[in-house]
């Protein structure tokens, strides 16, 4: 069965270019503003949209995404509202793939079966659950695949040739290569190492490989797009949200525009 994610990457392959994958935290700084941001992403140049599900204890995220999650939670964001956000986005766009990204506890508490059912009917295509390694596949990955949804795995510099088959075994949609050792948005990827690792991982999977963690500029995106099938930008966009806020943390008329402008700029890099 082909999903929106499969169709999008197939189309981009025909076009001969890499995908721009954009990450935004749901409900940051509030529900309405994040809906406005997400709705405008495809036009700004996003090919795949990752939506962060806020969590109090995001152990793989750097300060920017941590703060975004806490802003969203403080303004009443929760799992139900995150699914509602996807549903509303789908009213204007039925093609752009949506991947929910986050941590397992809110999903577990929601109830895995119910969550998969509600996410699918809202128009979600896949999931990245950071704290579910292959060793815990029975928890959520297998049920998600059975529901016809993609489970996208993170591969990292510690994913050596011995471990790679385990990591890719139940992966679908695409592979998210974490370009640095560390948390989101704190280090700058070393382009040589990214190239070597992407090429190494290709021996283990035929899925598209997208590269993220620390990509901030059009220049970096352009360089990475030469070797990878997609470039993921997250912390830079979330920081753009933060910078546009008032001192009290309220959104301004610039908030959505700032994010869309940055996405357009990086999209130019990916496409050139």
């Amino acid at each position, binding site marked *: 069965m082909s999903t929106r994610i499969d169709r999008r990457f197939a189309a981009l392959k025909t076009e001969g270019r890499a995908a721009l994958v954009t990450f935004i935290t749901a409900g940051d700084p509030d529900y309405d503003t994040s809906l406005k941001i997400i709705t405008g992403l495809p036009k700004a140049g996003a090919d795949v949209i990752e939506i962060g599900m806020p969590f109090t204890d995001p152990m793989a995220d750097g300060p920017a995404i941590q703060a975004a999650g806490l802003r969203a939670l403080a303004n009443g964001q929760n799992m139900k509202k995150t699914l509602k956000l996807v549903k509303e986005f789908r009213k204007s766009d039925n093609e752009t793939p949506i991947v929910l990204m986050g941590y397992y506890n809110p999903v577990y508490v929601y109830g895995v079966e119910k969550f998969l059912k509600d996410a699918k009917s809202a128009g979600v295509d896949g999931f990245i659950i950071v704290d*579910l*390694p292959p060793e815990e596949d029975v928890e959520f990955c297998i049920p998600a695949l059975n529901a016809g949804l993609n489970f996208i795995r993170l591969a990292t510099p510690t994913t050596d040739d011995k471990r790679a088959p385990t990591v890719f075994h139940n992966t679908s949609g695409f592979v998210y290569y974490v370009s640095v050792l560390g948390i989101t948005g704190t280090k700058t990827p070393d382009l040589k190492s990214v190239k070597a690792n992407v090429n190494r991982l290709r021996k283990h999977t035929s899925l598209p490989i997208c590269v993220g963690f620390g990509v901030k500029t059009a220049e970096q995106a352009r360089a990475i797009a030469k070797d990878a099938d997609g470039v993921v930008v997250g912390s830079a966009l979330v920081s753009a949200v933060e910078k546009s806020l008032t001192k009290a943390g309220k959104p301004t008329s610039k908030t959505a525009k700032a994010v869309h402008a940055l996405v357009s700029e990086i999209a130019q890099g990916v496409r050139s």
Partner: protein
Amino acid sequence: MNVTTPNSFRTGPDENGLFGIYGGRFVAETLMPLILQLEQAYKDAKADPSFQAELDSFLEHYVGRPSPLYFAERMTEHLGGAKIYFKRDELNHTGAHKINNVMGQILLARRMGKKRIIAETGAGQHGVATATACARFGLECIVYMGEVDIERQKPNVFRMMLLGAKVVPAKSGSRTLKDALNEALRDWVANVEDTFYCIGTVAGPAPYPEMVRDFQSVIGRETKAQMLKREGRLPDSLIAAIGGGSNAMGLFHPFLDDKDVEIIGVEAAGLGLKNKTKHAASISGGKPGVLHGNRTYLLMDDDGQIIEGHSISAGLDYPGIGPEHAWLHDMGRVQYLSATDKEALEAFQLCCKLEGIIPALEPSHALAQVMKIAPTKPKDHLMVMNMCGRGDKDIFTVADILGVKL
């Protein structure tokens, strides 16, 4: 609950790091190869008699083990029921049980060739113990501690600095123990080659709950031998305080298959269990979830967001509990009760006056339950409470509450 009683309560975890449904390895992929490497290294060390011999030697000559099993005569007379013994782990080097586990993990880190040690700490006891062992072996030591806790526990922060450790404030989230754990995990992800993460309690991804339990089980093994020598039989009941649950697991584990021994864990009820944000009793007031690498009982809201625990004792205000405790609760082998801030404070003061022992606020919670249960038992009932830490670190907190200016 309809559960089948296993033949033994001491065989867990299984090969997936599970105690029933609890435990597991819920970590980011970057850490997974390290977790598997650690698991193997611990397995090898456990099977190597020279590792245990080296650990035993340090426990005897550096930590000061065995710790006494002391008959608390005046407490017994005062309560008028069970014969009360204290397992005196507060007499260990650095003043608490934490060092038992730290010595084990640091020897393992040395065996693995790791030169940089990271740890999280709440009240600072595990941080001090880790800094101590790192000083002893000349290892670099970085301790993550919530900004709020740094303010509350200044003497321990200075101790760590004297011992050569770097104390890094955790500034994210609620800026307490759970956030210090998050920061330590973030550090580990970024420094996978040379770094060993020394976790302070029986929680975290497998193999930590098992490994920390094994290192702390020296408490229960000694208690068993000492009680047999002293009274010619096993105790009738065991009582210990629980934050993450390492001192309790250390005392309980060797006794889990002695079916006549009643086992009681005491969580921190803070200002009372009715107010969701004012206690730290994960079993009595929480539900199963996944955090910090394992599934266990957690304090959280309906959306699965973690709620910060509260307790008068900074060592107990963690919003989770070790996964083996979660399983022992579901199986009904261990009974989990709680004690409020007020009850713990009363027990603290009584212990000072009757026994000449200033207990830490953590075991004061266990003592508060001893005060309730001991009077209901006959005089030949042998009760052991784990005096897992001394109260020097807590005198400022207590003075503050009693309205005394130091």
